[in-house]
Each structure stands twice: as C-alpha cells, then as structure tokens.
C-alpha cells in the first residue's frame, strides 16, 4: 500500500515579489519557488507513518513552474519511494485549487493509496480547499488542520486542531484525504549530497495531462498591498515606549 503526498511549489516571499508589466501576473523571471510549507509537513507526516507501518510514500505534483524536479528529488532523498510529475501546457497560468484537484484526482485514484496527505493550505489556497475538493472528487472521506496521524486496520486515526487549543480525535475510513497543519516532528533535514545522489540515481515518472478549461473568474489586475498608514512608530527610552504601549492597550480596553 502507498501513502500519496501532494507537493506544490509557491513563490518564495523572502525575495520581494514584482508584478509583471501585464499587470495580471507576477514577474516570473524574478520569482523563485519553494515547496509550500504545509506540504513539507505533509511529507514529514507521511515519512513518519512509513517508519511505523512500512508503507511506500509516493510524492505527486503538477509541474506549473518547470522547476518541480528539485522538490521531487528532495522528497526522494528524504525517503519517498516514488515521484510522479504531471506535465502539460501550464506556462503563464496559475492553476486554481479546483483545477489542480481535477488534474490530480485521476492520477491519485490510479495509485490507489491508503492515504492522501497534502498541506492544510497554501499561499494560493488560503481557504484550504485542496483536501476537501480532492476528497469530493474521489468520493473519499477528508479532513483538514491535522496535527497527528496513526494508521490502523481499515482506518486512520487523526488528531485535528479546532480552536482555542481544543483537539479533536477522529477516525476516518481509508482511503482518506488529509490536510496537514503540522507533522509530529519538524520536517527533517536532508543533506545536499543525498539530494544530488537522488538526482543521479532515481527517476521521476511523468504523466501528460490536458490543460483544464476553467470556469474560474478571470484575473483583471494584480497589485501590491497599499500601506494603510495607521502605524505609529514609538520612540524614546524603553520605559517610555512600554508606558505608551500600556496606554494604547488601555485605550482599547485590552488591558
């Protein structure tokens, strides 16, 4: 049996993002990509499950950036057994979460995994729609905001974070789709030598997919957030600043 992990690359915001002259896209020449942070946790959780149960881990991604290989090789170096890359004519488009789920669903069904793990959300999926949409398309149970998993006979027990620190333990029949909020351990380090070895020694399986025709709304303009101008810089000695902070908190009834 296998555990499928979905990896997605998102723009790295460490470098300032620039908008392309078209006004409807990021300046892709200056963007660099990183794996969505929550997806890193999904992979780590899958690797921890593998250590406990011996399942194979398959990482799956849609190559919208032309640079997905790096992320897939890194996952292989960390301990995944297979990597599957969906390729197509995606250049110059951002796939909506719905379109992404549509492309992934048949490929994942084919893999017939015991579990699908993905990040709970992504910078371009702030509502965390990927796990529920995939669950709906596959007609498998799903849940999000997962912070721990355990596989048992025919079920997966998950711990899910609610609000105010309340945790919910539930059991889902497998196969199931999970949106991972945090793995039980910090995503592991993989030495660069191991990644390079994976690049030499392993292969990424490719699946051609059709570009989806989307009924999503059309983007008309992208712009950088404007400063609201409500910030007040506090100056003076530390005790003056502390005094002023207390004053502000008091004025707002927060202290």
């Amino acid at each position: 049996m296998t555990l499928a992990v979905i990896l997605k690359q998102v723009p790295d915001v460490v470098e300032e993002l620039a908008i392309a002259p078209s006004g409807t896209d990021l300046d892709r020449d200056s963007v660099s990509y990183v794996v969505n942070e929550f997806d890193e946790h999904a992979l780590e959780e899958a690797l921890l499950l593998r250590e406990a149960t011996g399942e194979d881990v398959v990482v799956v991604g849609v190559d919208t950036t032309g640079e997905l290989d790096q992320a897939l090789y890194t996952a292989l170096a960390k301990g995944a057994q297979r990597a599957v890359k969906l390729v197509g004519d995606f250049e110059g488009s951002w796939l909506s979460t719905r379109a992404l789920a549509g492309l992934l669903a048949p490929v994942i069904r084919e893999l017939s995994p015991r579990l699908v793990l993905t990040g709970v959300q992504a910078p371009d999926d702030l509502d965390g729609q990927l796990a529920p949409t995939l669950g709906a398309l596959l007609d498998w149970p799903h849940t999000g905001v997962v912070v721990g998993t355990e596989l048992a006979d025919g079920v997966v027990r998950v711990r899910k974070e609610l609000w105010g620190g309340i945790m919910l333990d539930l059991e889902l029949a497998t196969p199931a789709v999970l949106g991972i909020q945090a793995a039980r351990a910090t995503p592991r380090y993989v030495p660069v030598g191991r990644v390079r070895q994976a690049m030499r020694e392993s292969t990424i399986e490719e699946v051609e997919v059709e570009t989806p025709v989307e009924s999503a709304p059309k983007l008309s303009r992208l712009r950088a957030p404007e400063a609201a101008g409500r910030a007040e810089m506090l100056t003076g000695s530390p005790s003056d600043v502390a005094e002023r902070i207390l004053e502000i908190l008091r004025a707002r009834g927060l202290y």
Partner: protein
Amino acid sequence: MDSSLRKVQDVWEQDTAIVEGVDISGPWNRMFGQRVIWDYTPELIDEIASLPGAESFAWCYQCGKCVPVCPVDVVGDYGPRKLYRKAQTGISLLDSPDLWLCTTCMNCLRVCPKQVDMVQIMPAAREQALLSGRPLPAELQEALENTARYGNPLGQPPRKREAWVKDAGVPVPILHQIQRPVEWLWWVECYPSYHPRGIDASIALARIFHALGLDFGILGREEKCAGDSQRLAGERGLFEMLAEENIRTLSKYEFHHIVVTDPHALNAFRKQYPKYGGQYDVWHYTTLLARELPRLRPLLTRQLPYRLTFHDPCYLGRHNGEYDAPRQLIEALPGVEFTEMPRCRQNSYCCGGGGGGMWLDSFAAGRQRRRLSEERVLEAVATGADTLVICCPYEVSRFEDAVKSTGHEGRLRVRDIAELLAEAMGLIGEEPAKA
C-alpha cells in the same frame, strides 16, 4: 620463572633485592603484573576512526595535553582526550551532544603529540551523523537550509546581497555591472553583506580601499557563501555545491587576486577550493592593508584615544598563520594604547563561532557555564581595554551580545580593524558608519 619471585595477589615482589647497596627487598620492589584491560571496547572508537578523514581519532594515547587548551573545556567539559575516553566507555560520539560542541579552533592539534586532528575528525563524524539521518540541532538545520536555498545562512534574499553598497558613500563596483577586469576581487561574504554591524565594517573597508585607490570590485548578488563553516558542520555536499557554483561564477570574470573579509572564506579558498579546480591568490584584508601601510600610514591623521585589545580569529591565526598583519595595523593607529590578552596569537581563545558554532549558539550555551564569547569578553575587560578589536565577521555580533550578557555594556566596544582605520582616516565617525 625466577624462583625468587612470588606472587602477592596481582603483584610481584622479590624477596631479596639489593640494588647499588640499597636494600629494597620485599614490598619495596613491588611491581604490578600484566593484566588484561577489559573495561572498554574499541568499537565506538573504530566507529569514528573508520570514517575517511577521522582516522587520527584512534591515535590518542590519553596524555591529556589537549584538555587545558580546549576553549570548550574552559567553560565546560570537553577536549579530544575526553571524547576518546567517553567512546571507550560506551558513549557514541555520533549520538552525543558533544558532536556539535567542537568549534574546530585547532588549539588541541597545536599541542597534541599524536596529531589527533579534530579539524578533520569533526566534519567527518558530523557528516556521518547527517547521512545516517540522526537529528541535528534546529538552529543549525535552519542555517543549512537557508544556505542551500539562498546562498547565505541568514536566510536573506540573494538579490539583497549587494544592497549595502548604496550606503557605502564611495563607488563599489559590482562585476556584473562594470564588465571590466579588476585587480582585486573583494569577496565580501554573508555577514558583512547582510548583518548590520557587518555592513558597518564593509562600508569602512570600502572607503579605505577607495582612499587607497585600489582597483577592486565585488560579485554582489552573484556571490554565495564560501561554505567553509557549513563544511565543518558536516555538510560536505552543500559545501561542494557552493564551491562549484562560486568557481563557475568566478570563472566569468577577470581579476588578479581575491581579498576576503572573512577568515573562513580565506580558509575555504586556500585549502578547499583548489580541490574543486578553483586556484586563486587569496588575501585577508588585514594582510593586504598591512602591505599597504606605507601608503596608509600618512592617511591615519586622527588621534584615537582608545585602549585596545585584540582577538585573533582562529581561522586567520592558527589555521592560516596570520598573526602580525592585524597587529601592525593596530600599532599604526595614532593615539591608541594596545594591550594583549593573556591568551593570544597561537594560544588565542576562540569566540565560539567556528565550525558551525555560529549556528549552535543556544545549543552550546545550554551545555556550558558561559558562552565562549562571554569568556573572551571577560578576558578583554580584565586587560583594562575599552575596545575589543576584531577582524572576523562572526565576532562582532557574538562579542557584542556577550558584552551585554556579561553586563559590560558601555564599558567595552567591539570594533572591526577596518572601522578603526577608517575612523583614523576621517572616513567614518566614532559611531558605526551607517547609524
């Protein structure tokens, strides 16, 4: 067997023995018999000594010379002898926090009669720990991931690497912009490019180079971390990747020599890059400026009323043999008083930043009475100095933090030699250039 020998438990005695007229019969000539040493296993020593580069771990004969000179032992419990002994008694170095505490300062190798070389042993053992999937301290993991992703351990954007130049106040040519050969390629390195106090020293140095009319240029955003400390922290693969990329970048440009701000970069270029095909004539900036002293001296016109002491960086001094250039520069500063710390030159103490220590600060601090940087600051204060002079970019942040944590704020300042020279030249004020 000599019939006069009799065995008293495990001890041999000769009933009658008169040596040169002295009667040492009976217990007076007692000798211990041979015994089988059974209380240790060599397995965990072999575990380390079998790693390529770490062979010398097994050569230790427990003389103990290394322990008192080990800067980590001064504030804790450490040294090659102790690591060897622990391995004998069943503590695996690979699984012990000890693995991360050595700063590869090289002071033990200086005194070791058996050439047990922690500078080789530590990276090999750490690499083995990483490759076998053992967890590493979180701060170090973050620095390594940042270096792999952004080319600097601070996690700063690569494009911002040359941003300090706009505050330099003098032209700092960037090679990808000027497209002409230069005599000196200045390898600025990460902390001098991104850390606020590192930038202060970079600005000072840029102004000095400019005042001397040096034909120089920097790589700016094309430069990546030279990677030496990551290598010593066990990430050889990352180091190789950085070395290959940097050598490729350097091959695009024409220059005669490299001048580095960072002794760790000096070490990488001198000792490691040649293995990957990068052969360069590399100078530390203090060496270059000391050579330029005849032209520099007349420009040092301002009196500096400071009492100075100087910290030898491990990777400039012990590792690369440069002790004199920084001192020549300090002595050329008009008006200063200079006192050495007791531990100086070959026996200099270590700031704790080398060998990955820069990214293990909390990890190490939790296992030592005080930080190495704090120990050194106390030594500097005891000389009566008001300024601790440094010439390695790891040190300014480490020592400034230590000045605060030991309660000496306002009594000891930490300044790069470049800052003092620039001040004496009237190129910067007494306060940091950028402030």
